[in-house]
């Protein structure tokens, strides 16, 4: 099957995408060839203008609230701006802010490296977990013999429509020293949100590796030792990972459910007639047909997880010991607390690059798995 059309695949029959394609092309081609031809005498007269009119409000919104701010952020990141005066009255410093963040030994580079490490582990856990769980829930809910679908759908979706701050506060109580989670789990009671120990370090400790090899503490990258790079998410960050996974699966489950319901029953029945088992049908028919939806969910998930802020702000402001510091929160800290708004803008631009790069990798990965 061809990928890249971006449209929802409604029918797996190869004839359909081809049949769908012509109208799209015929609409786009004249506009691309030259608007004058369309305007004079064709049946499409005025359609292009009307199209612009329809999209004008959304387009204006995108321009004013997205495009212009991005350009301004990039511009401001090249200046020496504290954020306390007009940015137009500031000095151009070239790539000084980026240089400080990426190449100069110091707090700012270390902070950025730590925040990227934290956020990387956060993404690494949250995206697969939320995608997999949401998919499984959607498949279960899509079962036509299931009773009380409405009830389950509503309850799974509920966390997603609850205020993230309210949910975070509930989790703070659940995971505190005297909280419910500690009461259920055996062992020593700890306040999860106040524990800076890395999960991977803890795991290494369990198998007997307490002391890191010397080269891992003496050497490092961007001011953070290799031993710190492989720390994994801290216990506090892991609590946030659980929290976010729990709140976000509802939305993604709904998207998956919509995707599953657009797969015609006849396809799965055809597979059954051909002798495929339930698992084979799922693996070889359902999942390939769901690929556009999976791509969408993973992309949205990646972008959102690299920008995590609310939960960080509401728990510990990046603590304990900076183990929940993220680039988005660092941007806020530098811009509004430390009066280094240009530096904050530079961090935001770097975060944009990280997001673009990870989305690009993910596209490549999903494409390559499709060409098996």
């Amino acid at each position, binding site marked *: 099957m061809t990928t890249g059309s971006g449209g929802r695949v409604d029918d797996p029959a190869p004839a359909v995408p081809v049949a769908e394609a012509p109208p799209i092309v015929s609409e786009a081609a004249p506009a691309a060839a030259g608007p004058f031809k369309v305007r004079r005498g064709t049946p499409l007269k005025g359609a292009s203008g009307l199209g612009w009119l329809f999209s004008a409000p959304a387009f204006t919104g995108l321009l004013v609230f997205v495009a212009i701010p991005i350009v301004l952020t990039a511009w401001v990141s090249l200046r020496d701006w504290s954020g*306390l005066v007009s940015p137009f009255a500031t000095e151009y410093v070239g790539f000084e802010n980026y240089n400080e963040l990426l190449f100069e030994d110091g707090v700012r580079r270390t*902070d950025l490296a730590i925040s990227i490490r934290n956020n990387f582990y956060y993404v690494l856990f949250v995206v697969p977990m939320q995608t997999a769980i949401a998919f499984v829930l959607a498949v279960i809910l899509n079962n036509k013999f299931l009773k009380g679908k409405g009830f389950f759908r509503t309850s799974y979706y509920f966390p997603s429509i609850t205020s993230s701050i309210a949910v975070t506060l509930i989790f703070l109580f659940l995971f505190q*020293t005297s909280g419910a989670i500690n009461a259920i789990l055996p062992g020593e009671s700890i*306040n999860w949100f*106040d*524990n*800076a120990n890395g999960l991977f370090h803890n795991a290494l400790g369990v198998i007997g590796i307490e002391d890191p090899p010397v080269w891992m503490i003496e050497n490092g990258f961007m001011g953070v030792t290799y031993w710190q790079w492989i720390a994994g998410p801290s216990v506090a960050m892991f609590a946030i990972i659980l929290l976010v996974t729990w709140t976000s699966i509802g939305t993604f489950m709904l998207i998956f459910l919509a995707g599953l319901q657009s797969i015609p029953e006849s396809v799965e029945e055809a597979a059954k007639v051909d002798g495929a088992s339930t698992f084979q049908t799922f693996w070889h028919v359902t999942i390939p047909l769901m690929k556009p939806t999976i791509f969408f969910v993973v992309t949205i998930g990646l972008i959102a997880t690299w920008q995590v802020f609310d939960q960080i702000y509401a728990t510990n402001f990046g603590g304990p010991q900076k183990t929940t510091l993220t680039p988005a929160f660092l941007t806020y800290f530098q811009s*509004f607390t430390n009066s280094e708004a240009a530096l904050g803008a530079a961090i935001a631009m770097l975060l944009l690059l990280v997001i673009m790069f990870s989305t690009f990798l993910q596209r490549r990965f999903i494409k390559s798995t499709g060409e098996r």
Partner: protein
Amino acid sequence: MRRRTFTVLVLLMALIAACGDGGGADTTTAGGTETTTGDTGAATTAGGAATTMAPEEGGSLEGVELSLWGWSSSDAENAALNDLVAQFSEETGAVATFQPQAEYDVALQAALTSGDPPDVFYVDSLRLPDLADAGALAPVPDGAVSNPDDIFPSLREAFTYDGTWYCPPKDFSTLGLIYDPDVLEAAGVAVPTTWEELATAAETLTTGDAAAIAAGTAQAGLSMGVEYARWGAFMFQNGAAITNEDNTAMTLDTPEAREALEFVAGLYQDGFAVKPAAVDAGWAGEAFGQGKAAMVVEGNWLPPAMAADFPDRNFAVAELPAGPVGPGTFAFTVCYGVAADAANPEASWALVDSLTNEEGSLAWTEAFTVMPARESAAAEWTSTHPDLEAFVAGADYAHRWGFVPGFGDVLGVLNPGLEGVVDGNMTLDQVIADTTAAGEGVLEG
């Protein structure tokens, strides 16, 4: 015909949508100023004064509009400040309004950046260097503040940057030792006045480990946030500080500083002091209120918090125990700054003076637990707050809470490092080395 109706409809919808967008943009950028002016103006100033009029006549304040921005501490404080501002308006004929902001730093930053700042606004001593350095604040003109020598020198110092005095303090708070007199008496512990006594008292009063304390079945001797804003007081008591007096060099890597940090860290490591988060409290005051700690190191903001959340909790205030070198504490203070771009500087300074002169500062602090920044008002304040006298005593030896622009980065290394020492995953040597390196970078730059 039908087609035309449709087009008109579409046009109308587009217009409505576009207006919706525009309206949204207006409220986000200007809403902070415009809408609040209307609201508070109507609520505080007398009906007649609220009508707008153009400023006239250079000398008179008649009709001059002034905005005062701050954050909101409590409804009672907002009401008291509103009264003082209304009184100023009545006496001078100006139309001044107090407009508390929700996300203060962000709101103020947006106002300064857009070139339309409020005339007068709160400035925290920690924030002053940033604002002064950016040129956002007007220095105090000669004679604008009445009897400046009456203001506690340490507080004037807190708002002096590069030799220029920028604003008179609104009030101040110091750190003290807050304890439960009943618990101390029952345990036969005297109020500690030295480090040794503090350590012994904390040990005697501790009845269990963090898990038991969190569960409410035991009590810690001492609860205190793990941060320089608390631990620094102990460094002062040993003749040390993070930087030298004029913030030009790091002085953390000294035997005195190390000794002080080791003493405090030892209290946690021995289990006699707990950080609030370890016992499920948001801050030390909450731990104290819940009975999880017998002693805490907090400031003038604690009594109102107790009254609001734990009205039955009994407490008393003592000066912080003195260290080997002497007493030491922090003074936390906020001033009324006047914007460098204030539309009417004269009127703005008149408002600031009316709020901070002897009469104004006493009127403001009388009903509250924060202290007047003027020595002449201190005695009268103490007579109405005899139980909080220890906080006033701290004013004599308090150190200011303010450094240089960008110092947030340094505290951002020190505080998490101290947490690491308490949690046992960092050494004090490492923290001192890291912080000193970070600080040297900032102080040089």
